[in-house]
């Protein structure tokens, strides 16, 4: 009996190419749109998360003045190395503290020159910013204390000055000093916030102070917070400490600002979560719409086919055989449609992800879910109207117009 129904189902699918195509199309669109949308959404979320994590988690940036915009009248007092030591020794729960002073300069190597940011700092800076060496080494203790003319360069600087040749051991000219390259940083790429970590030349703090800025000022302080401590509490402690050191009385505004990367990454994570939920909701709606499409085609085709059911019953088909035929037709069309939909979504996701530069992700869980949901709708709505038609007595089914 199963063989008979299978044969009949396949014959009917081939005989009614247009109807089969339309049914399949409904399922293809339903499955393809959902899977593509969710996969792209996941890709976008993943991309944002990568950017957030490349920041270096739990990093505080202490700067003089309020934000970037409000310059106002007097220039705010900068920090000095005593402030850095005070933070390092008096605040609990911090991993590293890195003072930084920076200026812009043109780096020259042979005939090449490149305008970039030159910053003086300590080895802690690399730790606090999650920067790694691609080649070479960090500053030695001697180089830091003596303020030797050595530097570590970012990937953008390396490419612009050295192309593909080895930069290690070569000397850069920065203003009037010659500076030996002892390390090259790994490319961090797009993403991250604040200055471009790839486009900089890093030298020991003392060297920068003595040879470039000519003063003892610390322009900013980076603090890496221990994962187990609450960065919000540490922000408050640092703030209290700095207010005291800068003799700010109660009621006076801070003349410095502390930027907390944790807050930013929390905000971004919240945003991406919302984005994912939104995409999920859109996907669910399109799945339902796709489902209704499938339902309509199935219902219409079964109504059209009530006479056919009548004929089959009249010439001696048993109800089970007719139902089995319709069920197999529905399963076959739904599965073929679902598979084509998956292939389409795979191709579309690859193309779009490549086109807009998102990381490629393909959510197999959602693919399976969409496939089974569409198949389920196809089968339910192929089966139940057929069941109703088959339960008519053959004469009524035949009279159906």
């Amino acid at each position: 009996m199963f063989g008979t129904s299978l044969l009949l189902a396949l014959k009917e699918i081939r005989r009614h190419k247009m109807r089969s195509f339309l049914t399949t199309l409904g399922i293809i669109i339903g499955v393809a749109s959902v899977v593509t949308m969710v996969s792209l959404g996941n890709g976008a979320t993943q991309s944002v998360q990568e950017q957030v994590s490349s920041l270096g988690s739990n990093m505080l940036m202490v700067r003089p003045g309020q934000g970037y915009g409000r310059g106002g009248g007097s220039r705010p007092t900068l920090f000095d190395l005593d402030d850095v030591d005070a933070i390092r020794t008096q605040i609990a729960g911090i991993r590293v503290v890195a003072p930084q002073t920076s200026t812009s300069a043109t780096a020259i190597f042979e005939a090449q020159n490149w305008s970039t940011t030159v910053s003086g700092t300590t080895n802690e800076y690399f730790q606090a910013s999650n920067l790694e060496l691609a080649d070479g080494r960090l500053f030695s203790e001697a180089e830091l204390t003596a303020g030797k003319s050595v530097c570590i360069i970012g990937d953008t600087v390396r490419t612009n000055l050295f192309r593909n040749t080895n930069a290690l051991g070569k000397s850069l000219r920065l203003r009037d000093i010659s500076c030996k390259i002892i390390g090259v940083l790994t490319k961090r790429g797009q993403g991250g916030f604040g200055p471009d970590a790839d486009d900089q030349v890093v030298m020991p703090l003392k060297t920068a102070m003595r040879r470039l800025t000519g003063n003892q000022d610390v322009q900013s302080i980076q603090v890496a917070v221990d994962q187990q401590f609450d960065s919000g509490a540490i922000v408050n402690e640092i703030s209290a400490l700095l207010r005291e050191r800068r003799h700010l009385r109660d009621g006076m505004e801070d003349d410095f600002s502390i930027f907390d990367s944790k807050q930013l990454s929390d905000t971004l994570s919240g945003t991406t979560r919302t984005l994912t939920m939104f995409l999920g909701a859109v996907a669910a709606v399109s799945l339902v719409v796709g489902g209704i499409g499938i339902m309509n085609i199935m219902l219409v085709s079964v109504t059209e086919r009530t006479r056919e059911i009548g004929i089959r019953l009249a010439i001696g088909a048993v109800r089970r055989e007719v139902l089995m035929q319709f069920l197999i037709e529905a399963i076959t069309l739904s599965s073929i449609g679902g598979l084509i939909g998956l292939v389409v979504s795979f191709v579309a996701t690859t193309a779009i992800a490549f086109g807009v530069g998102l990381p490629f992700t393909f959510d197999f869980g959602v693919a399976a879910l969409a496939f089974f949901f569409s198949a389920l709708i196809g089968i339910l709505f192929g089966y139940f109207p057929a069941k109703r038609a088959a339960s008519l007595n053959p004469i009524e089914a035949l009279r159906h117009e």
Partner: protein
Amino acid sequence: MTRLIEVRGLTKVFGTGPNAFKALCGVDFDVNAGDFVAVMGASGSGKSTMMNILGCLDVPTEGVYRFMGHAVERFTQDQRALLRRRYIGFVFQGFNLLARTSALENVELPLLYRGESRAARRKGAMAALERVGLTDWADHTPSELSGGQQQRVAIARALVTEPQVLLADEPTGNLDSERSIEIMELLTGLNRDGGISIVMVTHEPDMAAYARTIVRFKDGLVLAVEQREARVNVRN
């Protein structure tokens, strides 16, 4: 003579309550094996209802219907389907062929439900098409065939299972007179040479004239049964 069909006190009521319509009011009716019966009557006389019950497409409200000794009125829907599949060929006024399906495949269909092999289906269907003179049209779909040809395909489909009885509900109702005569001659030949019993509903006396027994229906009752001489194959 073997009694093929035996009907006693058959009633059929459509609807319920005050709107109930009694289409058959206690019909007694027999068909012997090998007979050619024409059922006549005005529209609404219950002849089509009778036919549907004989064809196991519908069930009586009350009464006895024995087909080859089986008490059909007690059969389930599936049992009736199996009975139709094995012993009964049904020809409709409206042909009722599957659209977009070749004549051959339409005729093969009952054999498919019987579970015959591909080769046996092909052979049986071609033989049935040959009996109705349509071997050359086997690959054509109903829309490519004339009304008369469609009805012949339907007859071939009814014959392909070698049924005990061929039930025809106004088989010439949709055909012009020339096609009608062709169909009637085909049926007469099947009855006379093939030994197939035929029960045919018609309201045209010309068509009923081909039958050996004429049963007249009126208002849900059998009015008269006439036995006639077998008609010689004449075509003026």
